[in-house]
């Protein structure tokens, strides 16, 4: 231990020079900002609900089901995603598609987001590119476990994240929510 460190006082002064340097530099920027210099930022804080940091395009966010041109789900209820899902959070019931060219479609397609681990395997496994995790929606929550189950029509209604990085759809309220 150096002598100055043992004495401590010099080290205190050194530390205070650093912290007060931050204080006065940031204070100057805050004042400049208040006086109209909008580019002067005295803090690194992102004011979250109003401001968002840009997300990576690879971000795995809330799932959505891709629609065909007639609005029916692109999903053919092949059960690949349900099979691959390590959390067993997908539940599919198949039914006939009205179009005879298409074999099946899901009558029910429930995702229990309370169980989902956001691994993205369902997206990888899908042979029809019918499920994607590109809504950019992260703020889903519920007072009950039931409320975390998102059903087919809610998932079908979602849009991919906008070019500005903000979610294009509002945070959906699933039909299963009872509160």
């Amino acid at each position, binding site marked *: 231990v150096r002598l100055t460190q043992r004495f401590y*006082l010099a080290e*205190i002064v050194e*530390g*205070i020079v*650093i*912290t*007060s340097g*931050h*204080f006065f530099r*940031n*204070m100057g920027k*805050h004042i400049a900002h208040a006086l109209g210099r909008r580019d002067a930022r*005295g*803090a*690194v*804080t992102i*004011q979250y609900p109003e401001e968002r940091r840009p997300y990576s395009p690879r971000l795995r966010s809330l799932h959505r089901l891709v629609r065909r041109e007639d609005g029916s789900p692109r999903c053919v209820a092949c059960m690949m995603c349900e099979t691959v899902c390590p959390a067993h959070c997908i539940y599919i019931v198949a039914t006939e598609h009205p179009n005879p060219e298409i074999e099946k479609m899901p009558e029910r397609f429930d995702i229990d987001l309370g169980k989902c681990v956001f691994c993205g395997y369902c997206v990888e496994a899908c042979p029809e590119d019918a499920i994607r995790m590109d809504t950019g929606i992260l703020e889903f929550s519920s007072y009950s476990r039931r409320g975390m189950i998102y059903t087919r029509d809610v998932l079908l209604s979602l849009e991919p994240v906008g070019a500005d990085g903000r979610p294009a759809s509002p945070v959906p309220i699933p039909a299963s929510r009872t509160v």
Partner: protein
Amino acid sequence: VILDVGIVFGRVFFVIMFVLNLGGLLGWVERKQSAIMQDRIGANRASILGFRVMGLFHPIADAIKLLTKEDFRPARADRFLFTLAPFVSVFFGLVAFASIPFGDTLRLAGREIPLQAITLNVGVLYVFAMLSLGVYGVMMAGWASANNYALLGGQRAAALMISSEIAIGASIVGVIMIYGSLNMQDIVRGQGQLLFGWLPAWGIVTQPLAFILFLTAGIAATKRAPFDTPEGESEIIGYFVEYSGMTTALFLGGWQVPWLVADGFHFPGGAIVALPHLAVVLLQVGAFVVKVSVMIFVMMLVRWTLPRFRYDQAMRLGWLGLFPLSILNIVLTGAALLLFGGRPS
């Protein structure tokens, strides 16, 4: 006679309002200053009718929250002491301000009004006596909760206060020797003089070592970081653990108020300029407020710069560092007075 009573009442009222309101405001200052030091913004969401005013409403929001919270009392706690403890610490924290002078004598309509809640000729002793009594509140709190961790916290607080108050008392002796009085108003007046014709004879000039010792010990006595071993968030939860609601607010006020004394004490009084009497008094009061503010800024700077001392380190600093140095300061002051002859006053 009624007027005299009214004047006394007014003096006391001024001091109490000053201390209490500053205490509330300091919570905001502390949050904002620490935020700016750490490249953050700080609490800014409390709003009244959409107005946020840089988070100034947060102290009000905190007060409402603390007042409306459940006043939890542990089952085995000593009810009397548990309730009494926060009042004891706040009471002694507040009455200690009574003899702090915030200006010279005000002359209005043939009356002489000392700008000080109580004029005491042993003001220095009074302040330290009241501050030392404040530790009883902390010890009571630690004991009354019937909780081992709270007891440990209270004991640490008591040990810390004793070890630092020895240094406070010993370092102030040098000031008393220089200005030759125990009356705080006299000490302040003595500091209005000049050394070598230009240097104001402030305490920091005549007693630089005592100033540093007093500041360090003063921070330790308030139990704020880096001396917050009684709380020691990461080690023990401390005596705050079972104080909720209003009692917490009182306790927070309890340690915010005392170090104000340490500030206002070392830098009181002001310059004398040829101005109307009222302006002089106003300037003195203003200078007092500015000096207190500067010292608060410095103490918060220290609090947000330094990591916490370990308990044994704080003890070693108090007993083996501050205490011997303050004794040395007494010796040096005595020698200087002997060599250079007499006091500046």
